[in-house]
């Protein structure tokens, strides 16, 4: 009855193993049923597995970063120990009371049946936020942070021993989180600490994927600027007349739509290159991956069959998959199958970048922030809204002229947005 062995359950269709990302317990901890015990990452989703029983953790299997097969032992519990130790008063242990003679017996709860883990991989519970009580900060600062909705763990404390000062919180709030704390109170303080961060879980997957992309694909990058003044006017009109069920249109749905229209003329750019097999698979479907920054790292959720959508549908679907990725509720289907990827840093778009191709795709488009610029039109300096595009192509299978042709075609569509809808 006492010992309970908990094995890594089947946490998703076709999943055979998972990587231990974070333990929430250590051996000797008392846990209550449903308390989170471990985060396990499978292909792209991280699942928090709750404790199936109430008891004491006696052993853990699997270091952080280690792969654990489904069905292998993950945790062992002593489910009687909990009742025994927890029923003793901690502050005044008074052993004259013999357990059987206790006037108010506290029966040991019968070990409960094994709970199924959180059933779908698509619904991982977020890991509990770092408790702000671990941050060195005075009660007044903790209260201010709580009332301001600031997670103190995100604020860099500039005081001695990393203590968070009011100035740190001021700086954090003023910059909306962009600045993590005030300048150190004393510039004479040298920082000598080295923090080692284990590259595990999603971060390791990203690292592996990036290495494959960058080391096997000879990239060439190409830049162009696009006059989106007309597109902006169209966007404003559409947004002002949209109904409440419709999402607000950004530039991205138009770019996606334009790409889906022109791809049949540039099939070499909407493809997967299997360099082992020596085959380029040119896709009819335009499935656009949207590089999305999440709290857990970079995800690329996919909008499928953009060629069969209008601007509203593309915007809605993009919003859906991006928020699913951010919330950690994206399904495997949402996260696979792209034929072309767009990366856009939004407000932080900058002037240009050299995006890394999402292997095995052969092209990627970087979209930069549109801004008003003085440009020359017919000998006159006029103010136009300009957006820069960066792009990278797999030079093994896309020639420079072909890559440039795609971008120029896209530019024409965007500068004369009526073409998108022709």
């Amino acid at each position: 009855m006492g010992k309970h062995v908990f094995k890594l359950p089947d946490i998703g269709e076709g999943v055979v193993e998972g990587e231990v990302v974070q333990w929430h317990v250590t051996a000797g901890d008392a846990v209550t049923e449903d308390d989170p015990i471990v985060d396990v990452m499978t292909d792209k989703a991280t699942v928090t597995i709750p404790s199936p029983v109430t008891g004491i953790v006696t052993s853990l299997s699997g270091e952080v970063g280690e792969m654990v097969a489904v069905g292998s032992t993950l945790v062992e519990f002593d489910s009687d120990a909990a009742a025994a130790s927890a029923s003793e008063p901690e502050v005044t242990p008074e052993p004259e009371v013999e357990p059987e003679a206790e006037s108010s017996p506290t029966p040991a709860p019968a070990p409960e049946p094994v709970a199924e883990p959180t059933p779908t991989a698509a619904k991982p519970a977020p890991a509990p936020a770092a408790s702000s009580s671990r941050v060195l900060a005075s009660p007044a600062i903790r209260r201010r942070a709580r009332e301001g909705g600031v997670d103190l763990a995100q604020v860099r404390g500039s005081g001695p021993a990393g203590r968070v000062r009011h100035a740190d919180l001021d700086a954090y709030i003023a910059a909306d989180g962009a600045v993590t704390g005030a300048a150190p109170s004393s510039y004479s303080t040298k920082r000598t600490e080295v923090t080692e961060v284990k590259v595990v879980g999603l971060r390791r997957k990203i690292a592996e994927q990036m290495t494959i992309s960058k080391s096997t694909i000879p990239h060439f990058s190409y830049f162009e600027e696009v006059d989106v003044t007309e597109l902006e006017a169209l966007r404003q009109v559409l947004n002002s007349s949209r109904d409440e069920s419709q999402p607000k249109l950004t530039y991205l749905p138009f770019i996606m739509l334009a790409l889906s229209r022109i791809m049949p003329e540039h099939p070499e750019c909407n493809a997967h290159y299997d360099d082992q097999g020596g085959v380029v698979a040119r896709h009819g479907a335009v499935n656009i991956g949207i590089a999305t920054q999440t709290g857990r790292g970079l995800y690329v959720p996919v909008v499928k069959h953009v060629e069969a959508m209008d601007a509203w549908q593309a915007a809605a679907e993009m919003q859906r998959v991006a928020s699913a990725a951010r919330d950690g509720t994206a399904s495997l289907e949402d996260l696979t199958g792209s034929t072309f990827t767009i990366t856009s840093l939004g407000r932080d778009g900058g002037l240009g970048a050299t995006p890394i191709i999402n292997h095995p795709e052969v092209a990627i488009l970087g979209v930069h922030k549109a801004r008003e610029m003085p440009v020359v039109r017919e000998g006159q300096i006029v103010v136009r809204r300009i957006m820069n595009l960066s792009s990278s192509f797999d030079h093994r299978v896309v020639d420079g002229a072909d890559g440039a042709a795609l971008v120029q075609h896209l530019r024409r569509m965007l500068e004369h947005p009526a073409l998108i809808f022709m």
Partner: protein
Amino acid sequence: MGETRRCDVLVVGAGPGGYVAAIRAAQLGLSTVIVEADKAGGTCLIRGCIPSKAIIHAAERFEHLGQHASDGGHMGIFVDGEPKVDMAAMVSWKDSIVERLNKGVEALLKGAGAELVKGWATFEGPKRCTVETSDGTVGIEAENVIIATGSSHIDLPFMPCDEEFVLSSTGALDLERLPKSAAIVGGGYIGLELGCALAKLGTEVTVVEGLDSILAIMDAELRRPLEIWLKKHGVSVHTNALARGAEIKGKGAARKVELTFEKGGEEQSIKVDKILVTVGRKPNTKGWGLENMGVRMDAAGRFIRIDRRCRTSVPGIYAIGDVAGEPMLAHKASAQGEMVAEIIAGHEREFDKVAIPAIVFTEPEIISVGLTPQEAEERGEQVIVGKFPLAASGRALSIEAEKTGGFVRVTARESDHVILGVQAVGTHVAEMHAEFVLALEMGALLEDVAGTVHAHPTMSEAFHESVLKTLGHAIHIG
């Protein structure tokens, strides 16, 4: 059934958790009803902390008078004749203090606009109860309920308290006559506080404790001065000793009670005037319809399970204080009560205390705030520890606080000097705890305390010096 009242907040129990919650809720403009079957104030105020501290203070006075009345006097002060104790008068002096505080609490509740309903509440559903008052039955329905029912004495089934020979702490605070001899079953803080006071008043005290040491909540170094004091004052302490039963012997006024206990496989017995049973306290979770509220209990089924906002498993039902878990301390209950009232009023709050101070009012007094050196090491901290003896404090010497061999001990993280815990033992050290706990809440480093001027001559200099000692440069010890 009579009327049904509706309110925003219903507080069950007017102890230090409940009454604070009710006052704060009313201050915040919430319509608040608080139900209490006994006097407002709870165990702490009516039959716990406050009355015991009054008796402890009186006992200390008596002990001092004894010193001045002895041959040769003391400090050049002589008192002729023997000081005497009139226990009934002492109890009534104590009662006058309790009454003032009880009236004070009721006035504060009224002043804040919280309605006190006197009677026993029985819950039929999560947010609905009926209260039997002297004016009949009142139904109450609330948007939010704060459970603050506290805890009560644990009886030993084979020697239940009759409050005549076998006393609970409540009975021990209402003695009519000073017992010549008393046995204390359970050497935890409640038993030892009363044991020290009785010993000072002249009672022959025997402590029977089941573990291998008394006051197991404190570490050996902190217990040592207390153990020496008990030995010097003729208190016999039996550890690893299990009480087996009590039997009343003799007739009429000569009646005594015989306590049987087992120690080292042998049965022993002692005849005493009173037995005091202080084997612990249990949360009050029965007899008022908790089972009809549907709230989830903790793993052992002992306390109501709460989260960091004192929320139970039922939305709108909160639990605070002793009924909601360890440590069972009045000041924790009050802090939770204040917080819950603010949460109900819509404020963002969480119980994020770095430390809940614990104080034992024995002779000498013992304080623990935060981690002990051992606890810190068990958590994997590399620590530095500094200890300063009261014998090196001028103020301690001038008020004879050093005689019990006390000290202040500081534990800090070695790498960044963040103070992790402070403990102290000694006569009159209790009030010093406030600075310790402030240091912990503020995240103070050793250097923060070292750089703070402490007035001379005060006991608090001992904290300053213990911090300097931790940094390796104390002034008044080597």
